[in-house]
């Protein structure tokens, strides 16, 4: 399994043709206390760089973009019960959705762990 990061602060775990998507620890820290996550419906076709989910913090609503193009095949129902999972476990239990990856060339330009860390250090 390989983990990738976008400059919009999403992470992607790729296993075969399926990607698990969430937002990074850095992103949850910026958003603050998360009170609601609006997830896409299973079966939705998402497009790289377009809205896929919405995160509501106490402060404001923020869009989450699809890091890749493909079809949503599963969503994290646990976030409905406990949206704060995104704060407490952003890069594990607080994942958002799983999707098929239609075009693996879209992985180009994404960052690995080390590159993402130095990207955040410069923000």
């Amino acid at each position, binding site marked *: 399994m390989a983990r990738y990061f976008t400059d919009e602060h999403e992470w992607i775990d790729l296993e075969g043709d399926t990607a698990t998507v969430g937002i990074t620890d850095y992103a949850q820290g910026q958003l603050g*206390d998360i*009170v609601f996550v609006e997830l896409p419906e299973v079966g939705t076709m998402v497009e790289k760089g377009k809205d896929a989910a919405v995160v509501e913090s106490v402060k404001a609503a923020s869009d989450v973009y699809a890091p890749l193009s493909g079809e949503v095949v599963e969503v994290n129902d646990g976030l409905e019960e406990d949206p704060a999972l995104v704060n407490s476990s952003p890069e594990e239990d607080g994942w958002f959705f799983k999707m098929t990856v239609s075009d693996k060339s879209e992985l180009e330009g994404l960052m690995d762990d080390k590159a993402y860390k130095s990207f955040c250090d410069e923000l």
Partner: protein
Amino acid sequence: MSEDNETIDEVQTLPLDAWHRGKGARMVPFAGYEMPIQYEGIVAEHNWTREQAGLFDVSHMGQLMVTGDKAAEELEKLLPGAIASLKPGRTRYSLLMAEDGGILDDLMVTNATPWIEADEEAGTEGHWGEPAYYLVVNGAMKWDDIAHLREHLDDDVTLTHMDEHALLALQGPNAATALNRVMRNVIDDMVFMDSVCHDFGEWPLRITRSGYTGEDGFEISLPAEHAETFCNRMCAEIEVRPIGLGARDSLRLEAGLPLYGHDITEETDPVSADLTFALTKKRREEGGWMGHEAVAKVFADGPAQKRVGLDIEGRLPAREGALVYSGDKQVGRVTSGGFSPTLQRPIAMAYIDTELTEEGTELEVEVRKKRLPAKVAPMPFVPHRYYRGK
């Protein structure tokens, strides 16, 4: 003081800027200044304020002093509240009105007239000094307010912008305990909306038992150069933590208090805004203040829309601008909304067509094309805990 130099084109820093950063605050531009939005997190800070005591830096707000024999009379031309009957050491919420009945700003007015002690050597008895009124106005509106006051107040009245003063708010059920410890019990006798001057060390502080969170608490005005020392002293108390503007906003929303520029604007009048308590009956009837004619007409005809609270079903917050529906008909608009940390559900303020403002009326709020069930709710959402005496 030169007004020409006081433009707010650039984001400025306030006296406690370094102190906030040292405490780990995230700073954001607000009302022309870099302000602390949060330290450890909005919910934790919100809950701390409701349970203990939070220290807020509100130095971006405008602090003005209006002095002169005719000060009360002159202010009453611009404010609909009873200023002349306000006793020394008492504070009142009021509004700065436009001719067309719109609200230019909301503000706190304190009768700050000093008591001059008897001087036996000079053979004088104790007496009240020159009438003085201390005004606290919104940060984003202060320059407009100052211009408006300068334009309309008589030349015999002096307006001073106390721009070398910081303003802090200590809010929460343990605010009085903490402040009493630091101030050696001098605030013991104060009740909600009392205002006194006291020395802290050698510095004069003005302490007003008020705030904008719904909790018991105090607003403290002091010379800016001493603000950091005072904040350090307060935060050394076990009950007190610094709190950012993020929690201030969620606290005031729960308290049902309107935020200028959002829930009240130049486009809203005091009747629609449900702020008629700020218009004392006598002054409402007698008039003599800017905007009276227009407001009297709204009183007589009834407002088309009114500010109300909304309880929203589910967990999805409705934010400012969300449209409110009754069936297919759009009947209002949310002016501020968010997730209430105390109640653990979304709440909002909205302007709704008057015939639908009865408590319990079922409506819908549209958030991202989804209709959420909502009900007209009584405000405050979280009960006020102002201290009105034992």
